[in-house]
């Protein structure tokens, strides 16, 4: 048997650290399962295959198709769980019938995905093979037969007196049905029966199986034909499909508040250029509008500082860059009008930590982490994010450490953004961005990230007028009513 192809290649390296996702608040908008996928960076070819799939998900029919497949696969997963859990013979037969049916539906659903991108086409081809179709054809007949036999065993009469009996039910009319009939004929609504959904017990299962022993033998013979089938195989796609749908759902949420998305161009030279880049982590705060900003990191100016007022959107800008870069590297669309991004080897972040520093001071801890970060990035085309690093000390010492780190970054040709309140960075030979009030927006206190250069009548008449009961207002009311 040939192994089924995968939708997500989990072997790619290296893996992005967990802290990056918490620093960028991605863990607030995506599930741990989706983050686990994002942690694995894709090869450029894989990015393109995933991009193709996301482009196809712009068509709602394709989304419905994928969602339907997912729900069918989940039904198989549930059927497998229930079968494993079943202990009573009659219950096992029902669960087995359900598993056959849902397995068949899963294979059919996967085989039907041939026109939803290259990724799904591989899977569809696997499930459309001759071998697979032959197995399904046989299993379909068996499932029908088992269902039919179970239906013949599914009704009966129970009598409780000195001895308790089970007999077949030929034509018994229940008392509640007879009473309902009388009620209807008297002009009353028939009383609704309460829904019943109770698991059978061993006593009833044994009695039914004995009463219909010939049918039970036929069911067992059908089940025995498929002991070699791996029913778990299609369910392995569940988590993979869920990833694509979760990202799709994020795209929809953003679209709902007017945030666009696009497929970023795969740049051949190291750069990160984007127009109107949005920080979608703000969706976690149920923001109704998000202010976009541009990104312009090229080989000539790969690194810059970001200064600005508190609450001016510095960290938001950093997150906008980081979140979208990670999405791009996992083959997902980015939240921007347009983007041209290089597939960086690694993305790392340095944010202040809230932990208690029992053995070392905060500064030592930050310095240690910076060193580790720069060591990890060595010999790679990396994008590094620093947020108020070395702010836990006096200005002089902090600024010196900042200069040290910057030199190392420059030497290793890394890309990056350093958010800081050290205004002394203006004196360094690096581009400096700053968060400034958007003058074009008269009503909102919004900031844009920009390149830095260096807020009578009588009493009664009045009252009548106030309540629109004066002569003129009454006339106006009449006009309003067509008089």
């Amino acid at each position, binding site marked *: 048997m040939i192994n089924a192809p995968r939708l997500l290649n989990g072997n790619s390296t290296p893996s992005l650290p967990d802290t990056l996702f918490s620093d960028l608040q991605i863990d607030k908008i995506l599930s741990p399962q989706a983050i686990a996928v994002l942690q694995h960076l894709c090869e450029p070819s894989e990015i393109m295959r995933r991009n193709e799939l996301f482009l196809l998900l712009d068509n709602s029919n394709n989304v419905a198709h994928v969602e339907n497949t997912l729900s069918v696969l989940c039904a198989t997963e549930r059927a497998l769980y229930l079968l494993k859990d079943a202990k009573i013979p009659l*219950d096992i037969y*029902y669960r087995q019938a*359900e598993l056959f049916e849902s397995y068949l539906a899963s294979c059919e659903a996967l085989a039907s995905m041939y026109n939803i991108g290259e990724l799904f086409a591989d899977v569809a081809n696997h499930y459309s093979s001759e071998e697979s179709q032959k197995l399904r054809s046989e299993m379909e007949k068996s499932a029908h037969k088992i*269902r039919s036999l*179970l239906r013949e065993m*599914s*009704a*009966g*009469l*129970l*009598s409780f*007196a000195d001895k*308790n*009996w*089970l*007999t077949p*039910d030929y*034509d*018994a*009319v*229940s*008392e*509640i049905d*007879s*009473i*309902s*009939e009388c*009620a209807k*004929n*008297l002009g*009353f*609504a028939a*009383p609704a*029966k*309460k829904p*019943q*959904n*109770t698991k*059978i*017990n*061993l*006593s*009833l299962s*044994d*009695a*039914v199986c004995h*009463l219909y022993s010939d049918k039970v033998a036929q069911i067992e013979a059908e089940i025995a034909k498929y002991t070699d089938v791996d029913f778990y195989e299609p369910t392995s796609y569940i988590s993979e499909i869920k990833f694509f749908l979760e990202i799709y759902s994020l795209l929809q949420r953003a679209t709902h508040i007017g945030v666009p998305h696009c497929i970023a161009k795969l740049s051949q030279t190291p750069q990160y250029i984007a127009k109107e880049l949005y920080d979608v982590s703000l969706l976690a705060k149920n923001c109704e509008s998000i202010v976009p900003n541009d990104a312009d990191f090229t080989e000539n100016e790969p690194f810059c500082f970001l200064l600005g007022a508190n609450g001016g959107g510095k960290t938001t800008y950093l997150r906008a860059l980081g979140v979208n870069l990670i999405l791009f590297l996992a083959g997902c669309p980015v939240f921007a009008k347009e983007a041209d991004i290089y597939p960086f080897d690694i993305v790392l972040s340095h944010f202040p930590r809230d932990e208690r520093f029992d053995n070392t001071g905060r500064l030592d801890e930050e310095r240690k982490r910076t060193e580790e970060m720069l060591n990890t990035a060595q010999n790679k085309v990396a994008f590094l994010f620093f947020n108020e690093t070395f702010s836990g000390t006096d200005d002089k010492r902090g600024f010196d450490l900042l200069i040290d780190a910057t030199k190392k970054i420059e030497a290793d040709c890394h890309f990056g953004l350093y958010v800081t309140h050290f205004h002394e960075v203006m004196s360094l030979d690096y581009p400096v961005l700053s968060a400034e009030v958007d003058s074009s927006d008269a009503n909102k206190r919004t900031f844009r990230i920009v390149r830095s250069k260096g807020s009578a009548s*009588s*009493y*009664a*008449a009045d*009252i*009548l007028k106030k*309540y629109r*009961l*004066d002569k003129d207002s*009454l006339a106006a*009311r*009449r006009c309003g*009513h067509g008089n």
Partner: protein
Amino acid sequence: MAISILYLNERKNYVKPISDRILYHLSLDRSFSHICADIKKREYFLSVVSDLTNDQNEILYRQAIIKDFENNPTLLEQLISLSTRFEELRITQKTAGRDEYRLNATGTASSATAKNILQAQALCLKRALLFIKAYGELLEKYELKSDGLKSLYSSCKEMYECPDYAKLITFCSKYENFSASRYWDFKFALNDEGRIEAYELIDHRYIHVTDPELKKKGFSLFKKAEEVTYPCQRLAPAKDGLYERLAVFALSDLSGAFAKISEQIFEKYGLIGRELIFYDVSLKYIQALSGKEVPVRYPIFTEDQSIKVRNLYDLYLLMSKPNTSSVIPNDFMLGKANGGLLVFGNNGSGKTVYLRSIGTMQILAQAGLPIPCESAEITLFSQLATQFSEAEKEFCEGNDAGRFEQEVRELAAMVDTLKEGSLVFLNETFQSTAYAEGAEGLYHLLKHFSAFNIRWILVSHLRQLEEMFENNEVTILHTAEGYKIV
């Protein structure tokens, strides 16, 4: 659908209910406190009266029922007695239903308890069915003229003459004595998931068992006729209590069915008991007026919007004064062309009493009642509103207005909500500001009402108004000596 002896199934021209404030302004609450001492009955009666209708058919429907009860006072007494017991049964049934709900919700129900509840519900349904027959048999004894009582009789008769009525009584009797049964038999069905989706009580006649143990022991020297062997299987005892739980479910389902039918009977016939209160108070009202030797007339409804009432008495004065002769009746005329009526007069000259007597008459007439007058030809209004000069409202949040502003606020609300075909009663309105300014404001407002075909009656001291209106635009009356309005 519930049977009503007050409301027609489809009321035409639904009208906004009148507020308690209007009843208060017109002293209807005080008038009826002299007629009916029972507060609950009086409140219900006034709630019916407040639920204003301008559907002439509905008013005539009530008038006919009142006349039937006037002619057959014992019928009303017997119906009230029957419906009181019917209401008690409804409460008993509700209590049994609550017990069942409690037991099911807490999971403490046993099959024995479920059986007791089933017996109680079967008994309640049987009694409810028998009540319908009793209603029918009672009404059959009287020569009825009103459509309301006749349709109640037909509905009861139709039910108890249906063959399924007797069948249902038989079912009720069977489960009323369910504890005597030796067998508990059920049918079950499994759904496609192999779970029990139905578990229902059946009659024992459906059970056919050939016990293999008895067959083995059977011995005879004679050749027997061919015996029928029924397929069956002994059930092993279940320790998990499943059969007990299912039995509770099936019994509870059946008692739920009995309860549901009972509830529908109570819903269909349950209004009658309450509605009889209206007729009970109505008869007391007629008797009170007759006791005062005052003429009582059912009004005639005109199509041309004219109003002509001869010698109209004020109900409150009639009920509160010991001597009827001290209550002066007055005529009330309003031509179809006149939008409004202005009444001027000195303090204590009877202006407010006159306004009140007209308001009371209009409300009672639209409720289907006769009115204290010699003759009445009236028109029906879609809405009634009053604005009586009052003291400043007590300080409360949001009320920062003085007395004049309060009045303006109330009138603004009226202007917003009143529709064509309404009648407005205004008593000393806008007299809390400079008279000239008040009159000016009021004039434009009254003209506005007239323009919208909203008719109005104003009693006032603002004589300036008399000059503002043109001839024949409004009817103007003045109080005269001896509380006469001329």
